[in-house]
């Protein structure tokens, strides 16, 4: 039982990080039909922003984080939208998918070329101590990750449903044309979702990099998990992405321990295929209607 709880919490913690990346992914899809194949690299890069801030500019950790957050919002949010997504709005989904595959290569190779191919240690948010709850030794780090994830998601939810801007963003996601008629600045709302995505990936980077170390190739697996989480939960629902991420983290951890480490990816992948074939709108998603 203690083992079970331990695994569950650790799974929820990693799942929470996947969920952060997946939420950003679904936000971009909802407002601008952007499928970001570089989402994994989006999580990889801010970690290097922090490292560069600390090693080249001698910033303390917290300052480097703030700088990295601003830089992510500029590059991964603003520039990504203005330079890559906007010019391609009329090309349909596939060219943009391919452009983001190109972007992923560019980011990966850029980091490898300019920072090196090694795995760099990254300052953790908490000491590596354990807290004992009901006989289960839980790592403090997992609990903090889980706490921060929940906090971030709740804050985002409150923002989306509680503020005027948030509701305008929801309207934009639901139906851009009607939103525009109602006088909502649709363009600006879409930009906000890109900025929020940049902040979310920065947060995910802070949480996951201490565990995986900072490496240029981190994005490959992370991106895959973010897709799977988004699709399992439902592409067009934020809470779907959260549920998808958490479910995925738990499945992943249990597979690794109880079934096979070598095949840990298989269960999520098979799950993904089954979901797409039989419930393409995801566990919580709504069916998207298409006109012919």
């Amino acid at each position, binding site marked *: 039982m203690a083992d079970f709880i331990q695994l569950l919490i650790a799974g929820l913690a990693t799942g929470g990080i996947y969920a952060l990346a997946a939420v950003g992914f679904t936000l971009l899809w909802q407002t601008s039909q952007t*499928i970001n194949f570089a989402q994994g690299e989006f999580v990889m890069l801010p970690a290097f922003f922090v490292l560069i801030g600390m090693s080249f500019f001698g910033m303390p950790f917290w300052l480097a984080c703030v700088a990295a957050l601003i830089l992510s919002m500029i590059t991964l949010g603003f520039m990504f939208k203005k330079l*890559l997504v906007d*010019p*391609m709005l009329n*090309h*349909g*989904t*596939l*060219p*943009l*998918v*391919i*452009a983001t*595959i*190109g*972007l*992923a*290569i*560019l980011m990966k*190779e*850029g980091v*490898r*070329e300019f920072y090196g191919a090694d795995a760099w240690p990254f300052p953790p948010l908490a000491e590596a101590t354990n807290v004992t709850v009901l006989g289960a030794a839980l790592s403090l780090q997992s609990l903090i990750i889980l706490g921060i994830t929940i906090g971030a998601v709740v804050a985002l939810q409150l923002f989306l449903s509680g503020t005027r801007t948030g509701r305008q963003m929801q309207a934009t996601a639901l139906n851009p044309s009607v939103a525009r008629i109602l006088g909502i600045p649709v363009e600006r709302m879409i930009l906000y979702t890109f900025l929020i995505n940049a902040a979310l990936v920065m947060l995910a980077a802070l949480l996951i990099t201490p565990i995986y170390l900072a490496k240029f190739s981190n994005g*490959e697996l992370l991106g*895959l998990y973010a*897709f799977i989480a988004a*699709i399992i939960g439902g592409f067009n629902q934020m809470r779907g992405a959260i549920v998808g991420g958490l479910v995925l983290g738990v499945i992943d951890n249990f597979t690794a321990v109880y079934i096979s480490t*070598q*095949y840990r*990816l*298989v269960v999520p*992948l*098979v799950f*993904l*295929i089954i979901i*797409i*074939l039989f419930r*393409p*709108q995801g566990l919580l998603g709504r*069916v*998207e*209607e*298409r*006109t*012919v």
Partner: protein
Amino acid sequence: MMVSKKTLAVAAMALSVVFLLVAPFLFKPYGVFILSTWVVMTIAAIGLNLTLGYAGQVSLAQAAFVGIGSYITAYLTTRGWPFWSTYMLAGTSCFIVGWLLGYPALRVQHHYLAFVTLAFNTLVYLIFRNEEWLTRGIYGIMNIPRPEVLGWSMAKPIPFYYFLLAHLALISAATWALIQSPWGRAFIAVRENPIRALSLGVDTRRYTLMAFALGAGLGGISGSLYAALVQFIDPTPFALGLSLNLLLMVIVGGSGYFFGPFLGAVVAVLLPEWLRFAQGYYLMGYAALVMLLMIFCPTGLLGFADRLLTPKAKSDSGPNPVLPDSAAPQKAAG
């Protein structure tokens, strides 16, 4: 613009053929090896171009078929099977697996299909890596023999290069014939507007499956040749990266253009080797090129050339490839 597009195309083609024929005498053995790799990758990309460029079905699983073909040839030839039987087997088994992988395409389209095929590729890769009794896992299969043709040994690099080139020529001719046939037209009809194609009596179901199966079969053939070329295979080359790379080859060259895969493979296979000194910068430049192409000319390099050479006044009646997504209405996601 006095020179017609057709003249230019024929001239470019003739030059390329002459170059390919004399190339082995211009390069060191390593250069011949790289050219051979180009031939093999072009065959895989031609297959993907059938699936993606002509029939409009996104597939991120081509590397899996190259892998299956490679492992079939590697496993059987090292156990004494003649190359040709493993070659046929590689082609047919990939054809069948590709047919089966086509079924999801009947239910979902575009990005969903991309994800299903992506998952399939990763699953196949995991099997290559983990089933050591079959594939020897990360240790790989060594000493894969090269074939003989009518008693002539193809073991030396230059004869083997010509052997591959002959393959490419035959496969190109067959693909060309296929595209010109009613089948090719049916593929394009399915890409452009599946619902309209269906209402005109095209059996979209069968052609969708066939597009997948043929693309996969060519992937298998390319894999079989690849195994004989490199003579040592392990799971690494067949990961998702190669699938993405093949997809980029088709798109960069010009998806839906017959010569798109040839050009795409030049950019993705040959140029990086010749621009070795640039190393990682080459890949960054390549990535930037992909993005620029997608922004300014989603029909790829050949689409760009086409646009440059076509007089603005009268539109040419030549191929009119569009990326599958832009025109076709999405098949209902539900």
